């Protein structure tokens, strides 16, 4: 903001400057006020604000009245007054519901926060529903979100820092963490990455993920997104860093490892044996959501000996007279399903179920009856879809979709061999990734027994002192990562 005209001259020149620039906006109010004389000298003040952004009632009672009585401007406003030094800041402040004030005997433009924007009230989480545990979610109001965090974790160890993002239209971001949790390097990195964001008017934390990731474009998510304050606390107390953004009802959590994406909010509140079972189940579902159609295609086109005879006969019977070869059929059905999913997301809630009935039941049934596709193919595609839906993280479900199509193509041309090769690529990708320097596949690779047991729900608490933060040796891995970074 350094290059805009400065605002540190007397009232007349400020008035002139503002008059020529930002006062041209619709709804802009310039208001003069005669103040009681001080030691015989006549005083007056000018106020600038945008009508719609300001709480007019408070303006009258808390600013105008006291000023007429001779008090300092802003002395009755709870939020502290800021000094505005240049025109860009002035514009920014006015847009955000501040009132600019300058008195005739001062060279300073003061900015009083009188904003009173309407916000959605706290609602039930939309995408991260849970059976047990609290059901509050974040809203678009940053102060409200932070207040939820502070209320739930009222500890002197909680640190909240803010960073402004963007050049000409800065938006406030906040990082929250527990003292002694993340390493200094992690914090430094995250601050640097936030500062490096040059994009203006960032609307949601989702837009920050690329800038905050170790590798900008990845198919696997390396940052956890949540709309639940309790989940944020679970991670923050465990040594992770949470990132909030003004106007965004979600928070980011970093570092986030592969295992974290199999955790559902309920897991924190359910009995442990059950959690172990569910996590294993989700892991299984993930491993089903990726290769199932590919396996079906390779079995029916290349590896006819792989199935029991009777099952093969059943498949053969279904496939008699099916016009499309299995790879094409699998591709068409998978695409059709993705379209169906996309359609049901787009449609308003009232018509949504219609799509699932028409798409799922009618198309599925008709496709089989008309002989376009084999029932098993429909079963495979549906089972895959259900498996993908069972994942707690929608991002991970998308990852599965990408790889599913990749593996399908490989399996169509090369059978199990291609499938295996594709899986190797997935593994190579996974094992080369990191989140804030922590190896993505930890605690599996590098293996850490206690962390692993905790991740599987087999251990009640994370290993001593570490929280569910990456354990000391993982942190060492992270340090090594940054050292390597600095060297290159």
């Amino acid at each position: 903001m350094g290059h805009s005209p400065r605002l540190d001259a007397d009232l007349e020149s400020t008035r002139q400057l503002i008059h020529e620039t930002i006062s041209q906006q619709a709804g802009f109010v310039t208001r003069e006020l005669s103040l009681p004389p001080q030691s015989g000298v006549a005083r007056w003040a000018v106020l600038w604000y945008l009508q719609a952004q300001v709480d007019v009632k408070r303006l009258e009672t808390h600013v105008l009245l006291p000023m007429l009585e001779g008090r300092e401007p802003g002395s009755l406003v709870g939020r502290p007054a800021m000094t505005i030094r240049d025109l860009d800041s002035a514009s920014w402040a006015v847009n955000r519901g501040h009132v600019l004030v300058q008195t005739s005997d001062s060279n300073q433009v003061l900015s009083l926060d009188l904003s009173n924007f309407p916000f959605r009230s706290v609602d039930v989480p939309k995408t991260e529903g849970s059976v047990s545990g609290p059901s509050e979610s974040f809203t678009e109001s940053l102060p409200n979100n932070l207040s939820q965090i502070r209320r739930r974790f009222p500890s002197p160890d909680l640190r909240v820092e803010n960073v402004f993002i963007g050049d000409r239209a800065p938006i406030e971001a906040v990082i929250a963490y527990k003292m002694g949790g993340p390493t200094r390097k992690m914090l430094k990195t995250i601050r640097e990455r936030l500062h490096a964001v040059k994009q203006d008017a960032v609307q949601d934390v989702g837009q920050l993920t690329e800038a905050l990731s170790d590798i900008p474009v990845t198919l696997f998510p390396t940052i956890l997104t949540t709309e639940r304050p309790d989940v944020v606390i679970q991670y923050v107390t465990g040594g992770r860093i949470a990132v909030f953004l003004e106007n965004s009802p979600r928070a980011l959590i970093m570092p986030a490892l592969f295992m974290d994406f199999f955790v559902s909010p309920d897991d924190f509140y359910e009995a442990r044996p059950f959690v172990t079972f569910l996590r294993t189940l989700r892991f299984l579902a993930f491993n089903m959501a990726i290769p199932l159609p590919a396996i079906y295609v390779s079995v029916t086109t290349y590896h006819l000996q792989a199935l029991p005879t009777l099952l093969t006969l059943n498949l053969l019977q279904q496939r008699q007279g099916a016009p499309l070869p299995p790879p094409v059929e699998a591709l068409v059905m998978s695409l059709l399903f993705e379209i169906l999913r996309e359609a049901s997301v787009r449609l308003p809630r009232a018509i949504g179920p219609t799509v699932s009935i028409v798409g799922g039941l009618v198309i599925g049934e008709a496709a089989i009856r008309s002989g376009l596709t084999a029932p098993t193919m429909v079963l495979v595609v549906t089972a895959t879809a259900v498996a993908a839906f069972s994942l707690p993280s929608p991002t991970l479900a998308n990852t599965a979709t990408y790889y599913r199509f990749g593996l399908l193509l490989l399996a169509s041309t090369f059978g199990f061999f291609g499938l295996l090769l594709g899986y190797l690529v997935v593994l190579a990708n996974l094992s080369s990734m990191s989140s804030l320097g922590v190896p993505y596949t930890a605690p599996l690779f590098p293996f850490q027994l206690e962390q692993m047991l905790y991740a599987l729900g087999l251990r009640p608490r994370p290993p001593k002192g570490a929280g569910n933060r990456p354990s000391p040796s993982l942190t060492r891995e992270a340090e090594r990562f940054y050292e390597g970074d600095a060297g290159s």
Partner: protein
Amino acid sequence: MTRSFRLAVVLLASLLLSGCWSRRELTDVSFVGLIGVDLEDDQYLVTFNVIAPKQAGQEGGGASQGRADVWSVTATAFSLDEAVGKANQLVSRDITLAHVRAIVFGETFARKGIAPALDFLLRSVEVRPTAWVTVTTGSANNFLEIRPRQERVPAEGPIGFNDLVQARSGITPARRLIEVANILQEEGIDLTLPLFRRADMKHPNPDGEEEAGSGARELIYGGAGIFRGDRLVGWLSADQARGALWSVGRVSRAALAAPCEDPEKRAVFRVRSSEGSVRTTVRDQKIEGEIRVKVVADLNESACSEQIVRGGDLSRAEEMLAKQVRTELTETLALLRETGSDYLGFGQSLYRRAPSIFRAHEKKWPETLAEMPVRIVVEAQVPRTGQMKQRYRAE
């Protein structure tokens, strides 16, 4: 750029150079469930039991129910692979042997030796080494006309029986292709293969009329074929065949009927488990054999007029059981001596203990078998007598 290029080269090379091009779709092939091998004028007469599921719309053509269409394709050739090629001229789809469940050798072929057929069967990448091997009396071609009533596919017939034969009634060892190959290569032990026969049974419906259809050509179990080397030399009846199993401890769940004091009445024991071993030792230059069997069986039925069980004393029952096992083993042994086929593996035991002595006797092993004394030791246990102790009497 160069890195991704290198990666692409590696990936493409590993994909394209692998030779994985053999794409054959499910609908491009015809599956063979059974192979029958016969001899005809010094040539192989090979019968393939081709399976095709019922077409949609046909009667009973639901996805999972309804029997498959099955027919036999026969080809004559000097080698098995040639026969496969010739059979392919008779079927519109590529014949695949990946789902062969059982290989059936006809009697004449088996008597000339089965080894030549094994070369192809073991070498083939399609035929599973776990396919069952059986023999039949008469021709395999004729046998393959079976249409077991309960099976969707005739090939499942021998499978069901093999399970039944070995595990349930404990009669003769079922053999997989790989086992057959192994036994033929081992020293001092001969092969037995389960014998199945085609039986044209009548299935009258409740009105007493015979039902039409293919259900009548059943598959029945007939005992075992015994081999010397790779040649079939004789048959064991269903009752005789159990001896071979006793000696390797593979009898379980079989029902043993032991005669009471009144030889026309029986007490039946159901085997729970058995252990068995065959040993051949040399003492004072003399070769001696020993069969040791430990059997645990429950008393399942008793028609004896005498009391088998007195209070908690089961020794009488155990004696009867042991005697019955001994009788079966004696019969088996007699047959073994008669045919000269060492399917209990006395030779194998000797070869492992004293190879030089076995080598010395190898040439005239059947004669040695016939002469050598064999001790039979049976240890029997009857832990349970079912729900009753005493014999049931209606008085």
